[in-house]
């Protein structure tokens, strides 16, 4: 199954810019489905980015983050070819991770 995580990490002179898009419904628990039943909350809680064994970014998400959530940040100390590990876990305990190559 293709990964739920898409990452674009580009090493610049100073910093590496990271963009990520994760395939996830991010249900808030306030929306009703076609026959009027509330869809239970189902959203990612924690997203972690690691480079060279060190956490470079952690996102803590509530139900107000959009579906197929997007994130952009940048950090220092990485170079082209390095690996960037991305992992997430949601409120149902589901998770996924991916190792991306920094361009």
């Amino acid at each position: 199954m293709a990964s739920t995580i898409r990452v674009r990490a580009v090493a610049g002179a100073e910093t590496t810019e990271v963009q990520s898009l994760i395939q996830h419904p991010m249900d808030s628990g306030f929306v009703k489905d076609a026959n009027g039943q509330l869809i239970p909350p189902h959203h990612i809680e924690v997203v972690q980015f690691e480079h060279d064994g060190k956490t470079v970014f952690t996102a803590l998400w509530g139900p107000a983050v959009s579906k197929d959530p997007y994130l952009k940040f940048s950090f220092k100390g990485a170079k082209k070819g390095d690996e960037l590990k991305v992992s997430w876990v949601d409120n149902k305990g589901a998770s996924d991770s991916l190792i991306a190559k920094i361009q």
Partner: protein
Amino acid sequence: MTFPDVAPCGRRTALKAIAGGVATLSLFEASMLLPAYAADAKDWPADAFKQKSEADALKLLYGKSAEPSDKVDLDAPEIAENGAVVPIAVTSTLPNVTGIALLVLENPYTLAAAYKIPQGTQPAVASRLKMAKTTKVVAVIESDGKLFTASKDVKVTVGGCGG
């Protein structure tokens, strides 16, 4: 009170940090000290995400209150194209930023997202948030242990025609 440097993450420095009075740190801040190798649900501050007011959410998240600052730059649309996908970006020139949070005051739960910014990571983040209705959006930057905010009003209405 600056955060003990987590990197290099040797056992000795981690232990010293924990011994150094973890009692004063909220669970959320203490969890920053422990290296995590994958996203860990225990990091998630569930209570903070249940709060209905900005002050309560920040109290639980950082254990302190915030003050406005013009060194926090929040980019949010004046009229949201669609309340389900509102592009938001925040950046700051404040020093030693260790945390960023985004709150949507009119949402059922105000805290939308929080970010831990380790040493070496830029104090900026972009994301897409959901907004229930026209609301004030607040960006919070934790710099040198103090909280600074900027806010913007975003108009949100149903899009499109009839039905």
